[in-house]
């Protein structure tokens, strides 16, 4: 197992190098000079040149890249052009908030999807199936910002049950932190449960038609035992892959939800940094996201044998 993990991690190194090069070049291809953004509309040529020199942007691109990448390999992602803060610390601080929302929301979404998809497949072409498929389709079609605003207006404004502007860290008040995270978590849970439910339902239908399920029923097992012990593990494996992809994608930032609920998460940090052409932060965020993506997918792969022992045998 350890060898497998090491091999997988080694294989990710070329990917991360490619990501680093691509990120470095792409952000510089977008028009807009960070020095101009920093100095504003009245900037004169001398000040712009001075700031560019301060930031090292006047050096040749390869020199800039190797300087940044060399530091990144040593764990130093540089300092933000805008705030002057260390990028690594800033990313970790913002990532904590995103991770809290995403992990809880994806866990809830997976639980809902696993149950709803399995039941819909089991009761295929009945009113229950129709209701689950209909709900999943509606959820898939609803944009997260719209859903977020509706929940904000309903539970935040009309009913006044929950706060919706700002954020309190767990270290300050765990209770307040939970309250501030309820609406973003609910929004993301609903949004993500749609696609997971569809996937779980489809794979469950496939598994329910297999011979060993018929055999299990013929043995006289209860429907509950058939579903839980025989159908669920096999049907859940493809959904787990999707959960991994979703997690990796969402941990890279949920900018829309973070903007609607004023959460200072990784997505907002990235959007703000792109709009300010804060190169070190954008580069750091994207590299960090790539690492998260790789790690999450590795973890998902390692979980596979729990549901499908054949994976280990292969």
């Amino acid at each position, binding site marked *: 197992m350890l060898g497998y993990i090491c091999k997988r991690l080694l294989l990710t190194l070329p990917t991360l190098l490619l990501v680093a090069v691509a990120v470095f070049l792409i952000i510089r291809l*977008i028009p807009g000079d960070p020095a101009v953004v920093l100095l504003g509309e009245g900037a004169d040529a001398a000040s712009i040149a001075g700031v560019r020199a*301060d930031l090292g942007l006047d050096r040749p691109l390869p020199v800039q890249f190797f300087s940044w990448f060399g530091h990144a390999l040593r764990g130093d992602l540089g300092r933000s052009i805008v705030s002057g803060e260390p990028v690594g610390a800033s990313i970790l601080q913002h990532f904590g908030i995103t991770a809290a929302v995403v992990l809880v929301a994806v866990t809830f979404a997976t639980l809902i999807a696993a149950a709803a998809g399995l039941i819909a497949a089991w009761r295929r072409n009945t009113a229950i199936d129709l209701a689950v498929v209909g709900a999943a389709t509606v959820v898939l079609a609803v944009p997260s910002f719209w859903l977020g605003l509706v929940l904000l207006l309903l539970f935040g*404004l009309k009913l006044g049950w*929950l706060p919706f*502007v700002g954020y309190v860290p767990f270290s300050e*008040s765990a209770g*307040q932190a939970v*309250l501030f995270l309820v609406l973003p978590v609910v929004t993301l849970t609903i949004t993500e449960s749609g696609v997971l439910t569809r996937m779980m339902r489809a794979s469950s239908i496939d598994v329910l038609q297999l011979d060993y399920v018929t055999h299990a029923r013929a043995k006289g097992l209860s429907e509950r035992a058939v579903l839980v012990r025989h159908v669920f593990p096999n049907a859940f494996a493809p959904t787990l892959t999707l959960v991994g992809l979703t997690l990796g994608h969402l941990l890279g930032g949920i900018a829309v939800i973070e903007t609607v609920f004023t959460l200072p998460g990784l997505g907002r940090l990235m959007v703000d940094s792109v709009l300010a052409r804060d190169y070190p932060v954008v580069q750091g965020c994207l590299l960090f996201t790539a690492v998260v993506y790789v790690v999450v997918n590795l973890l998902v792969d390692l979980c596979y044998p729990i549901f499908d022992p054949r994976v280990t045998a292969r």
Partner: protein
Amino acid sequence: MAVAHTLKTLAVCGVLLLGCAIAWARAGEVPRAPLLRARLNSDIVSTNPGTRRDENTDGVLLHIVEGLVASREDGSVGPMLASRWSISADGRVYTFALRPEVMFHNGAPLTSAEVVWSLKRYLKPETRWRCLEVFGPTGIARVESISAPDPHTVVVTLDRAAPMFLTTLARADCGGTGITHPASVAADGSWITPIGTGPFQLGEWRHNQFVQLKRFPLYAALPGPRDGNTGGKHALVDELRFLIIPDSSAARAALVRGSLDIIDNLAPSELMGIRGRTDLQFQSVPILDCYTVLIQTQDPALQDVRVRTAIALTIDAVGLTKAITRGNGSANNSPIPVASPFHHSVEAQLRQVNVAKARELLKAGGYDGHAIKLVTSRRDPQMFDAAVVIQAMAAEAGLQLQIDTVDWPAHLSRYIAGTYQLMVQSFSARLDPALSFGVFIGDKREEPRKVWDTPRSRELFDQTLQTADPASRQAVFDTLTRDFLEEVPAVVLYNSSHLSVVRSAVIGHQNWVSAQPRLWGVSLR
């Protein structure tokens, strides 16, 4: 059935747990301290006045730092840390008498040593002071010396007379040339925190969340009522919190809910849904900003003044202003804003739309029907809306405009480099008309962002910088306005209003011609 039963049980448990969590969290809520909460649509850039800055940064920091002088409500300059000043007969030597009762936030008294240190620091190139160029070769004057003959007197000597000197010191984008204590800066010259003399001191800046200011208990207010950025600046709340809320819908909901007390600088379109509510107060004050269409006069398609005039003749400034500002703006074709005391009959002239004449001029100017690109940005919704309206108006005269929407950094970079044909651009409030003309007039070789580069305009502009007498300045401004309308290096569209919405519990909030938030003198019922 069993699965369904388990799910039901889980759902009930989930709801109960959520209810308990809410109740538990609510039980821990602390009664609200005297705290005033205002919205910022984006985070501040730094706490270093006049250096790494934007409008939000200026607005917040002017609660913390103060300069020798500050802008009054009418745009003139009034005393702040200097109780009075005198100017030598040749206009070069400014002698400031400091107010003896002023203290810094660290408890140290204000003396001329700190003022000299602050001013010299601003003039060092490595400080990257926004207004350094004003005291450079192309600026109003060079600073020859700054000295302190005694602990309460500061003398600044310029290389030539500069009537705009005090106005420049008071500019918000220059950080009000705020005087800070040397302990604000580390030994290596890096910035630590602003130790100023303002009515509020910096409490906590939590990036992308809030900036919290605390009342400075030792603040020595000037006598009299508040007046622009000067006058009696009394902190009437213990804490002031600028909440960073990028989404306007969330901000409006927070205001209605009571999680926010003030939304400043609303776009007219953002009034939707809250206008008419009795628990909110609406304020609209005309400000000294300006929305324009800049014209790249060196572009082959726009070199001919007849083509530029034709573009101007297609734009119905009154209709455009009404549509975009929802009645909260003033149509104006002069660079001098409507709210300026220098806006008189010459400046009040508005071009009448004349499509037939525009067609004639386009033909005479050799316009061949090719699309002309109009650059705009969505950062300010009014800029994008203006581009759409202008495109439609121009089409009536057969002028084909193609809108090129870019994000703000790209927009700003193209503005600075002058790489556009037409560009919708807004300029923040300038309290002196010379500064309003200054955004247009200049040497294109040195500053490609300048659109009006003629010897006469530059000569007249220099006169506005060298003349102190209001009547003489008015005459020069009138001439500049006439020339501007004739030569059409840009089309000024309108001046907007400072729109604010505050909860009815807020007392004393009052907008003024500058668009910055001003939360001293404001309290809560």
